[in-house]
């Protein structure tokens, strides 16, 4: 009735921060340059640049986030007032702030650079900036006196810059740029202590594995670009690299299914590589060779999240390409599910605390992929958000332990135990984060992970809901084991204050070994400084200094409360993520969205009487309208379902705790050595210990095959066949020369001599043997040729 024609002009607010979000990655990039060129001369060896730049970009990011909230509220408020009470329609569309400048153009195609700011981008921006800042502050202490202190901060800063650049990329090219820069930095950071063969190998492996995935990125981008370009140009006036363009194209229904599918698959391969999904996850644990802060940054918010982010960013493409909406199994969800379980299992057999965390990361990433694959977009993104905090916290805590508790060892079994008393802060933060990770109510993990599992089931992927639940159990269990081994039970090794000789430790734990290396070889400032460490390392384990604990505490606090940002149990008002992050699936007039700069006005559709649901992929697209996001359904939160998962988690925690007590402290006869006695368990243990032999497969089989036999063969081919042909050609022509010389010049001559000699004899009628000298031979040749030539020609011409 009245509302039918009540369409309101709404002014979507914008602001300086939103308009200038593109500055965020530039700051650290500049800082990087400064560190490289002036770092060594600075009082703090350049670290100040890094920290300052990260804090600066954090401020900008927060500012932008704030203004985004304003913007959304503005639109939503207007929509609310415009729409009749009770009328239900898709959330109003809030255009992202897209600014793009031509970067380069080639063959009529434009390639832009700029920003694409919306809820998703902002979430990541804030998280990345925040975590990076903390990690850098933490590193100030953790790496103090390291030989390549400056290099380290340079790389770290550039690394964050890369991530930020990727996050706010408005198009694929810029995204690839950031993506690859991260790859490079991960190479430099993981290989930070490159004196050790192992570290440089790990670095190489990380870069290479990711690079394998990147093939997919290049190909996928190509496919999408060329299939989408014409459409996007026509309807939105943007190139086929443009992300919102691609989204709209994917949802438009005009896209060819095959292009979508292949594009999505190719891109997802890249995500597998980057986000350490099965089967390319093997580089992540090795990446632990890098300094702990690096691991923390890598695993919480940057590198590995990139893959998840890409899926989330181009969600429409994957949605359509994988038919997420109307299947109950697809590539993404499958990979995600597998990853959850296999990684969680691996986490059980690790001695290295960081490796435990690494596998836990892999498995958590599996959750995110699972969620995305199952249409639970929002929970997955939310999980990125929460996971960042507690995972960062866990890593930093582990670092803190090795730093001040276990004399730079990461071996839980040898050098830890009973540290809770010695380092209360670290222990507390660790435990909080553990619980958050395990998904205990009301900590951060619960709200995100439980949502994922819930929605996965809700969207009909029931099998994978089971996977998710079992994953939850495993998570709880292995984290408990790690916790127990580290902080409880009796103190062992370094934790007990004893100094076993460096070299025994050397091979056992890389990072320790590295520190030795850099105590052993290094004759620079680091040395004495390090002695200082050893000095206060002497009176046993102790709490870490403020620079380390403060970040821990901040992160732990966030691990406690971050979940409230989208606390579904407490009613829709708490679902801020849903409101501010999840894009609208509404059809809008094409131009309005892409060109949405400052303060443009968008037309809100009238809400109609009693109309159920509208939006992309639900109702047919209207002429001249596009949409940028599929309509995803959200599971209604039910305490019943939540309770189930909570019970499972609790069970995991308790059972594992009891087991650990029995096994590690009481040394229970029946348990100890069980894996030796029982065949099944032994087999399983071996498989796990060898990481499912995947590394063996890659390194021993594939890499060797390529690097040695095949390339050798190719090279052999090159040298002996191709080259051979050439040399042979040379030889042959010389041979031919010799042959011509011997046979033509000699034989034929003689032959001709004899022949013509015979002819002469015939004519002469004399039968005397010819004794022809050389001159006569020449003459004979001459005349023979003449005669023959003449003969032929005569015959021809008569």
């Amino acid at each position, binding site marked *: 009735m009245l509302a039918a024609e009540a369409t309101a002009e709404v002014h979507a607010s914008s602001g300086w921060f939103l308009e200038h979000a593109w500055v965020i990655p530039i700051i650290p990039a500049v800082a990087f340059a400064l560190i490289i060129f002036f770092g060594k001369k600075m009082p703090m060896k350049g670290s100040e640049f890094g920290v300052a730049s990260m804090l600066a970009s954090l401020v900008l990011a927060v500012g932008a986030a704030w203004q985004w909230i304003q913007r959304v509220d503005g639109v939503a408020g207007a929509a609310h007032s415009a729409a009749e009470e009770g009328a239900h329609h898709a959330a109003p569309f809030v255009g992202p702030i897209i600014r793009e400048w031509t970067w380069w153009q080639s063959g009529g195609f434009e390639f832009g650079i700029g920003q694409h700011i919306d809820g998703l981008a902002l979430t990541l921006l804030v998280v990345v900036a925040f975590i990076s800042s903390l990690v850098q502050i933490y590193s100030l202490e953790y790496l103090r006196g390291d030989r390549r202190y400056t290099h380290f901060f340079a790389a770290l800063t550039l690394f964050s810059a890369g991530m930020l650049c990727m996050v706010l990329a408005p198009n694929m090219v810029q995204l690839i740029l950031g993506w690859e820069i991260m790859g490079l930095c991960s190479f430099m950071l993981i290989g930070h202590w490159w004196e050790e063969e192992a570290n440089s190998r790990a670095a190489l492996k990380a870069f290479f594995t990711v690079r394998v995935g990147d093939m997919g990125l290049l190909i996928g981008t190509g496919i999408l670009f060329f299939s989408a370009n014409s459409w996007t140009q026509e309807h939105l006036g943007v190139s086929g690299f443009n992300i919102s363009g691609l989204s709209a194209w994917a949802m438009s229904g005009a896209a060819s299914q095959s292009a979508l599918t292949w594009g999505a698959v190719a891109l997802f391969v890249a995500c597998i590589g980057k986000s350490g999904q099965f089967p390319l996850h093997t580089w992540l644990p090795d990446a632990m060779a890098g300094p702990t802060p690096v691991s923390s940054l890598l695993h919480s918010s940057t590198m590995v999240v990139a893959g998840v982010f890409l899926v989330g960013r181009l969600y429409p493409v994957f949605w359509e390409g994988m038919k997420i909406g109307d299947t109950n199994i697809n590539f993404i969800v499958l990979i995600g599910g597998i990853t959850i379980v296999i990684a969680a299992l691996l986490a059980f057999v690790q001695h290295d605390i960081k490796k435990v965390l690494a596998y836990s990361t892999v498995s958590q990433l599996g959750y995110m992929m699972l969620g995305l694959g199952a249409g639970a977009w929002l929970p997955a993104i939310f999980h990125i958000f929460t996971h960042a905090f507690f995972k960062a916290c866990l890593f930093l805590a582990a670092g803190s332990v090795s730093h001040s508790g276990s004399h730079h060892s990461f071996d839980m079994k040898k050098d830890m135990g009973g540290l809770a008393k010695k380092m209360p802060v670290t222990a507390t933060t660790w435990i909080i984060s553990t619980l958050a990770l395990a998904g205990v109510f009301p900590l951060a993990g619960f709200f995100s992970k439980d949502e994922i599992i819930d929605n996965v089931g809700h969207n009909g992927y029931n099998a994978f809901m089971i996977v998710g639940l079992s994953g939850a159990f495993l998570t709880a269990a292995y984290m408990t084991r790690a916790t127990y081994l580290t902080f409880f039970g009796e103190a062992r090794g370094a934790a007990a204050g004893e100094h076993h000789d460096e070299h025994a430790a050397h091979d056992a734990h890389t990072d320790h070994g590295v520190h030795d290396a850099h105590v052993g070889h290094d004759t620079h400032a680091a040395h004495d400084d390090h002695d200082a460490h050893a000095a206060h390392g002497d009176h046993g384990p102790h709490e870490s200094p403020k620079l380390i604990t403060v970040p821990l505490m901040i992160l732990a606090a966030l691990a406690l409360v971050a979940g409230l940002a989208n606390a579904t149990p407490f009613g829709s008002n708490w679902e801020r993520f849903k409101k501010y992050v999840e894009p609208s699936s509404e059809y809008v007039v094409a131009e309005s969205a892409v060109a949405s700069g400052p303060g443009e006005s968008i037309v809100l559709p009238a809400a109609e009487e009693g109309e159920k649901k509208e939006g992309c992929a639900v109702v047919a697209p209207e002429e001249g309208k596009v949409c940028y996001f599929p309509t995803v359904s959200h599971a209604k939160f039910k305490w019943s379902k939540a309770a189930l998962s909570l019970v499972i988690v609790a069970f995991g925690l308790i059972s594992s705790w009891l087991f650990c007590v029995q096994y590690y402290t009481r040394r229970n006869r029946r348990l100890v050595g069980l894996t030796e006695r029982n065949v099944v368990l032994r087999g399983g243990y071996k498989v796990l210990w060898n990481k499912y032999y995947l590394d063996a497969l890659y390194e021993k089989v594939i890499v060797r095959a390529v690097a040695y036999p095949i390339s050798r063969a190719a090279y052999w081919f090159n040298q002996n066949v191709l080259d051979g042909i050439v040399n042979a050609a040379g030889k042959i022509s010389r041979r031919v020369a010799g042959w011509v010389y011997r046979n033509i010049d000699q034989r034929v001559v003689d032959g001709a001599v004899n022949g013509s000699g015979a002819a002469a004899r015939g*004519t002469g009628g004399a039968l*005397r043997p*010819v*004794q022809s*000298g*050389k001159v*006569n031979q020449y003459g004979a040749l001459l*005349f023979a040729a003449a005669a023959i030539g003449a003969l032929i020609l005569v015959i021809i011409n008569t």
Partner: protein
Amino acid sequence: MLTAQFLLLGAVLFCIGVYGVLARKNAVMVLMSIELILNSVNLNLLAFSVRHGSVDGNTFALYIIAIAAAEVGVGLAMVLLIYRNRRTIALDDLSEMKG
């Protein structure tokens, strides 16, 4: 006019000459054989010139005779030279340079 016979004679002389050049190893003999060829040529020319009723042939023949004399002169000189250096005029021995 019996042109044909003249030509035939010329041809025969030519063949004999060629045979001599190819088969003889004595330089002087070779020279003489060449003379034979030249004379066969002369014979041809004369025959033809008679047939055509033009003097060109005769002229040509005269030139040939003259030049042949010069040639033989040079030739004999060389043979002499060789004989002086080698005490032989067998052509077979003239094979220091080959290949």
